[in-house]
């Protein structure tokens, strides 16, 4: 099958004469893939996200989503239904005063018949485990819960891609985990393709593939293991690497033969154990 998203030689400039926010971006996302786009603030990663569902139209090049060209104005609504987007600020994307009505918002815009709505809302809320809050007021929810409502609002529209534009940046660690886990589950169980924009290394480490963006260009692309091996380069890009990857490098410098591509505490513990655990 064809790729879900194809970004072909895309450049984007906000205003004529200004410096381009993105330059010659080329990337493809396969169906069912979980791709993290990593970059510091101002690197152009959010601009890239907004190009993926026709909120912005490329100045040069083309973005093809599910076979639809975002430059084709007549297909804008189809593209946005296919590629749902969640944003950074949980408060600023909830429209209605009741959770289930917010989930209905996209359906109302698509013109879904009223009698079909309750079932779709219920299953969307169930998928993000927010059923019990269907009748709550959004401002009484936690940040992570609000983001899950936003995800449900998109799910109800039955998209094939979810684009998360720094959806966890304003959340606390447990909220971050709750939102990332929800999206990962949807990715695995429903095969929804995910483009996850973030500046958190630990989140990118969980992706199938990482695209590192810097100064509007793709600086590096590959599996998390490959990308995070380049510790110095990542730091030069104002980014970081997972703590355990950094520790692995330090231990190697000290002469311990730990592989450079460990990402998590569990992996590190295993590798260290191979060398140091008492044999019994």
């Amino acid at each position, binding site marked *: 099958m064809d790729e879900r998203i194809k970004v072909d030689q895309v450049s984007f400039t906000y205003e004529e004469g200004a410096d381009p926010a993105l330059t010659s971006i080329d990337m493809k996302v396969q169906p069912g893939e979980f791709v993290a786009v990593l970059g510091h603030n101002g690197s152009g990663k959010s601009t890239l996200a907004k190009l993926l569902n026709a909120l912005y139209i490329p100045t040069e090049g083309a973005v093809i989503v599910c076979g639809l060209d975002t430059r084709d104005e007549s297909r804008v609504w189809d593209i946005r239904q296919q590629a*749902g987007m969640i944003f950074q*600020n949980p408060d*600023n994307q909830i429209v209605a*005063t*009741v959770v*289930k009505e917010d989930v209905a918002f996209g359906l109302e815009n698509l013109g879904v018949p009223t009698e079909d709505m309750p079932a779709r809302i219920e299953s969307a809320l169930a998928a993000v485990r927010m059923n019990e809050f269907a009748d709550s007021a959004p401002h009484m929810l936690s940040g992570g819960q609000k983001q899950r409502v936003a995800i449900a609002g998109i799910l109800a529209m039955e998209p094939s891609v979810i684009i998360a534009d720094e959806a966890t940046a304003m959340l606390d660690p447990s909220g971050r985990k709750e939102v990332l886990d929800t999206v990962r589950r949807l990715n695995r169980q429903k095969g929804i393709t995910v483009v996850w924009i973030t500046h958190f290394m630990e989140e990118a480490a969980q992706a199938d593939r990482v695209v590192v963006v810097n100064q509007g260009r793709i600086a590096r692309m590959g599996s998390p293991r490959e990308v995070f091996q380049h510790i110095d380069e990542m730091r030069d890009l104002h980014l970081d690497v997972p703590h355990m990857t950094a520790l692995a490098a330090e231990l190697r410098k000290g002469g311990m033969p730990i592989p450079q591509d460990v990402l998590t505490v569990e992996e590190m513990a295993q590798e260290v154990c191979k060398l140091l655990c008492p044999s019994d």
Partner: protein
Amino acid sequence: MLKNITMGQYYPVDSFVHRLDPRIKIVLTIAFIVAVFMVHSLVGYAIVLGFVYLTSRMANIPFRMLTKGLKPLRFILVLTFLLNLFFSTEGTTLIRLGFIHITHQGLSQAVHYSLRLMFLVVGTSLLTLTTSPIMLSDGIEMLLSPLKRFHFPAHELGMMMSIALRFIPTLLEETDKIQKAQMARGADFESGNLLQRAKAMVPLLVPLFVSAFRRAGDLAMAMEARCYHGGEHRTRLRVLKITQKDFIACAAMAGLILLIVVEGIIL
């Protein structure tokens, strides 16, 4: 915690009146106001009072909730009464004491105007106490939608009202936070004369506006991303349906108006 404020004066219980279609309730409230203005005798007001009392019972709303709505208006009520009492000089004189000159007509006008004002407030309170703000905004939108033909933005108006309702708690919380942040920098919102106080509001209002605009921009983009493109071809989750209850309510209102008319002819 400002999160828990109740919006408007909605009294969230379940009742016959609460379950009426908001459109019908708005229309009936207007009809009620017209009815009140048709009353010309104290007996008529007694009938209206009885109607209000029965309605409040059916709405499961304590009668004092209604009278509470009058409290902030007590000065205007007294003023209306006194102005009419002292400044209408036509008709037969009742009392003349120095410059005070009270006429029969003046007295009756004073009573009428203050009673009308009171019932006007009580009638609209009945509407807002039994209808949640969001239903109210739905009702207004639907009632105005025939005007779309003349390019009246009924849908946009409804959307604006419901977004405003959604963001009131958020902005209140934000106001509280900014106010505290500026107080932490030595700002003083409480003392000084009027001008000084107005000036002291600048550090609060500027960030609040900046933030409101930022939120509006974010929200507009989020709405577009969810395929919002105005009111055309849009369906609704909440559909207003006129039920038997609404007919009963209309009949009751018709009864009230009939009673008042008949009473006006007989007396």
